[in-house]
């Protein structure tokens, strides 16, 4: 294969992987930004998105509808969970939050196993997305280009939400100083609920988008959540721009690392994280706390 073509393909591969990672890492960082805690259930929500997406597509035949229903279902679940369980924990130690979200992760995984069974689920991509394009005479799946576009669109939409809407303003305010935001007469509880639901919806959208590549299976969440944690650490906890940059760095490190140093495949991501944390302990765009 021509070296330029190879490099271009790898570039596109890295971008599509980054896009997939971005959806789940973004939700994690949003929740951290406003609640100062890691949501352990995020991987399970991502997996739920994959299952709901595949089932929607199997029942209705519409991939587009699966990209609507999966995030919607996860957002509603997230909202219900935040209102019923998490809202009681904000005044407590962070460890309570970790335990409860970890519990949700376990319960959700088992619920999915009961509802869908232990076998992986899959649905075929619609013909329009299943094709290939030729990039420098090499076939490249259209769907991976769609993923890159979806990742970029999500980044743009989130940036607009954060910087151009009142909800975004409140989210940023609550992340800087929740007590002051509440004292100024804003409903911080509603902002928290909205952020949690939004983050769950994003994770589920990521899961639904990932299903055509990986299928929906028990354990899908566990494998991806570790990468997402790493991204959030690299980018800086709670930083939107940091998450975007972190997703790209991890996507590129994995794609190019596995290619040139396949024996060190698992190490590339962690080497990157260690290097970043040595230079900037708070992450690239984060504050030290």
């Amino acid at each position, binding site marked *: *294969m021509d070296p330029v073509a*190879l490099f271009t*393909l*790898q570039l596109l*591969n890295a971008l*599509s*992987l980054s896009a*997939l990672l971005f959806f789940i890492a973004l939700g994690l960082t949003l929740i951290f930004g406003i609640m100062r805690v890691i949501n352990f259930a995020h991987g399970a929500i991502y997996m739920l998105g994959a299952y709901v997406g595949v089932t929607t597509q199997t029942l209705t035949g519409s991939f587009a509808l699966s990209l609507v229903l999966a995030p919607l279902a996860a957002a509603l679940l997230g909202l219900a969970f935040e209102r019923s369980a998490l809202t009681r924990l904000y005044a407590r130690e962070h460890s309570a939050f970790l335990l409860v979200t970890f519990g949700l992760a376990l319960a959700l995984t088992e619920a999915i196993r009961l509802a869908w069974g*232990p*076998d*992986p*689920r*899959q*649905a*075929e991509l619609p013909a329009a997305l*299943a094709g*290939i394009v030729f990039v420098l005479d*090499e*076939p*490249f*799946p259209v*769907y*991976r280009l769609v993923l890159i576009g979806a990742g970029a669109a999500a980044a743009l939409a989130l940036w607009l939400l954060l910087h151009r809407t009142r909800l975004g303003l409140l989210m940023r305010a609550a992340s800087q100083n929740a007590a002051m935001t509440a004292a100024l007469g804003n409903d911080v509880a509603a902002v928290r609920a909205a952020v949690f639901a939004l983050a769950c919806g994003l994770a589920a959208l990521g899961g639904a988008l*990932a299903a*055509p*590549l*990986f*299928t929906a*299976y028990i*354990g*899908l969440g566990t*494998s*991806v959540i570790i990468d997402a944690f790493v991204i959030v650490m690299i980018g800086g906890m709670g930083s939107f721009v940091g998450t975007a940059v972190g997703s790209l760095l991890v996507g590129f490190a*994995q*794609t*190019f690392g*596995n*290619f040139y140093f*396949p*024996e060190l*495949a*698992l190490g590339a991501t962690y080497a990157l994280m260690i290097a970043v944390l040595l230079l900037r302990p708070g992450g690239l765009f984060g504050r030290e706390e």
Partner: protein
Amino acid sequence: MSSTMIGRRAALGAGVAVLAAPAVLRRARAQAGPLKLGVPTAITGTWAALGAQVVRTCRLWAKTVNAQGGLLGRQVEFLFEDTQGVPANCLRKAQEMVERDRVNILLGLMASSEALAVMPKLAEWNALFISSVNGAGSITAEHWVPNAVRANISGPMGARALALHLRDSPQTDYFCLSLDYAWGRSSVETFEGLLRGIGKRSIGSVFAPVGTRDYSTYIARIRQANPQALYIALTGDDGTAFLRQAAQFRLFERMPIVTETVDMLFTRPAGEAAIGLVGGSRYSFAYDIPANAAFVQRFRAEYNELPDTYDGEQWQALDVLMAAARRANSTETAALVAAMRDLELSSVKGPLRIRACDGQAEQQGFVVRVARKEGFPHPVPEVIRTYPAAEVTPACRSATFA
């Protein structure tokens, strides 16, 4: 016959030492009751999906046999225990079954390492082991014991069938992709040896960590190496993810993809993406054999599903047990072991002969290709080559083909 034996044993028990009486009486009671078959297998853990096949097929077999009046007039009852595929667990559970439940026939062991842990104890336990899953060559070679038989096709036999098929194919340069752990690495090593044996070569290999999701970078590597064919040793979710992405990159159009064993557990979730995959086959519902057609029909009626690899292998192992019990007219260990020698029968994979020298069932070797087929919701394996037993069975007590 069995009732006179019980009478004799009970009389003997009553007549001999008082100390031994409770044990002998318990044995006599056990003899009169159902025939208990011990299945220490992987019900949870890595191999749970395979263990589930073993368990459901044993249940179906018990139901079928019991409806016909049992085995030699005795109802059959399976005792299942979870080993999680761990040899130490398997040894302990098997021992419990033998000592507590008076089991003398063990089946359905999952990992070869479990079988190898149990086999040295068989003589001491006076028990018989019929392998239905275990592939390691040494089970019927250097580690064979007379109380063990292998009804299933061994790993080397499966590899042999695939090698015979590839010998006749035009491709000479292969690239290998496998999971980075013991099984994957040994599978590639075996395959590379097998290629050398048929005058072909491996031009490179790459090992992906277990749990790899995005295979695009490995696909790029394969394309860069530009082999004429690709060999994969991937299982479960990893195999499924690779097949889907390989199909999305149209890799099948560039080169044939070959795998050690085609198993529906990983080809079914891959959907259309598995079409074209060629590999060895331990068992498939697609084998065109009358006994298999009957089994598949019964299985689908019971479970509304197609039997998979270890369903068929387990059924065949139970057919071996039935044939031996009928030949011996007994389910005592020594009588069964004697009856297994050169036992001939026909089961779901066609004619079988248990050879006396190492307990291996000589049987046909199959090579399959995944294809779309009328009447099935997902692509299924179809048989492309069948090799007679003589071509795929190694010499006695050997795991290699000289």
